[in-house]
């Protein structure tokens, strides 16, 4: 837990007055939260750069953990507590585990794999740099005069649920439809190879295994408790 998060310490909104109401705050004399925000941002940026430059595949996934975890801390600093935990649950707990599982199924070595570099690196660098600059200009220009009041928590679960299921029901339903379509699509794509692939995957063991990718143990089952 980062030390500079007073807002997440209490489930009940504290009775403190909103201090940022009068006059717009400036960039000079930053508060502790702002300093921590910038520092964590630097860590996230560094981890992201290392993620795409390291020659070791698994380390790239682990740097991704650092970058995504840093983003969760940023959410916390902005008092969006619920989003922060969702970030940890979905991205760190599931997506990265899925990535690592996928990597383990490949022949990637424990050491560096220099041949994994694409010859299109300079082009990718230019495109990524241009996209980053474009996004930065856009976000800075759009939110330059907007200030978030850190005294009151903004990301409480109840508030979030109310706004999502009162005001944003339609986008929410559209998104779930999209995800359902993706799910069905994935099943259809994976079933196309089914007749040849599943026969030889787990012979002799119960053929109802949901994940055919797991190599089943063909040897005896350990009888010791």
């Amino acid at each position: 837990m980062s030390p500079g998060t007073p807002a997440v310490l209490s489930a009940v909104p504290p009775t403190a007055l909103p201090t940022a109401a009068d006059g717009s705050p400036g960039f000079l004399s930053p508060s502790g939260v702002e300093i921590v925000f910038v520092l964590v941002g630097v860590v996230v940026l560094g981890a992201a750069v290392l993620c795409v430059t390291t020659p070791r595949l698994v380390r790239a996934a682990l740097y991704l953990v650092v970058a995504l975890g840093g983003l969760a801390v940023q959410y916390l600093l902005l008092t969006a507590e619920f989003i922060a935990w969702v970030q940890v649950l979905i991205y760190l707990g599931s997506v990265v585990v899925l990535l690592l599982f996928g990597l383990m199924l490949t022949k990637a070595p424990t050491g560096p794999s220099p041949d994994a570099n694409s010859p299109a690196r300079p082009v990718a660098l230019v495109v990524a740099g241009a996209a980053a600059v474009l996004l930065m200009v856009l976000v800075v220009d759009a939110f330059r005069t907007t200030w978030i009041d850190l005294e009151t928590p903004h990301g409480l679960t109840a508030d979030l649920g109310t706004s999502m299921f009162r005001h944003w029901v339609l986008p929410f339903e559209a998104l779930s439809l999209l995800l359902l379509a993706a799910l069905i699509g994935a099943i259809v794509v994976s079933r196309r190879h089914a007749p040849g692939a599943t026969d030889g995957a787990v012979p002799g063991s119960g053929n109802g295994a949901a994940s055919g990718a797991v190599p089943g143990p063909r040897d005896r089952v350990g009888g010791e408790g």
Partner: protein
Amino acid sequence: MEPTAPAALPVLLADVAGPAALGPGDVALRLGAVLLAFLTLPLLVGQAEHKVMAHMQGRVGPMHAGRFHGWAQLVADGVKFAQKEDTVPAGADRTVFRLAPAVALLPYFVVLVAIPLGPGTLVGQVIDAGVFFVLAVLGLGVLGQLMGGWASANKYSLLGGMRTAAQLMAYELPLLLAAASVVMAAGTLSLTGILDAFQWWWVPWQIIGGIVFFVAGIAELHRPPFDAPLAPEEIIFGAFTEYSGLRFALFLLAEYAGIVVVSALTAVLFLGGWHGPFADQLGWLWMLLKTAALCFLVIWARVAWPRLRVDQIQKLAWTVLVPLALAQIALTGVVKVVIS
């Protein structure tokens, strides 16, 4: 367990107006109490496992260390582990290999902060989306095992890591669905809020979800009968094959800390946590008793059942636990609509 922490906390908290008045000393005290619980409870479970397993198998277990029924056996084990050489394989990714035990152990400490021990403010930290928090952080521990499995440069470690990942992905879903059922019943994601809303008839109402949650929790910890990722007869010791000395001990400690955390979470979500007679004074005792009873069940399961095969583990998750959890959610929804 440690008598000082539960006794000292209410005294100090009596004159604290509310959560907004948390001082740095109070935070330090709470973290200290959680750390103390984190360091003692897993060892208690480990010692209980030694003795309970032994008596269930017609043995007496450790008897000599510490003179009285071998109470100091785990202390002796710790000294032994600390003396052993800490080896790193030549082909390993040294940094990741060394970091892995810490990554496996730390999440359980962080989770323990959010679990309420008693009524009111007898909790390390009230977190608004507490259920989300504990389940999210709980899932991080597996990263340590995956790191260890990969960085060891050993085929058995890699196999163990793959089985670990497959098992986690299968059991994360029923775990979340079962927890979601309680969240629906209470109408809040906060662990303290869930306990405040708890009624005794929730236990029979949520019993299916409770069983699913507990079984999925045991499976995420790779406790027998779900220990195919370790499976000493097949793949030596899975992701921990190459570890020795203190780092290996840390992995083992993570397993026992996980037992404590999963049992405590099951007690909070499905058995009413601190609720019981004289809950205002004895709430912490009820919570500890329920947690201890569930820990005993975890140990019992290890003695009672042989190890499940990898495909049987997957089959149990997808064809039994997920449908049961969904049925529990439907039941919760129906009852919730009827009584409101």
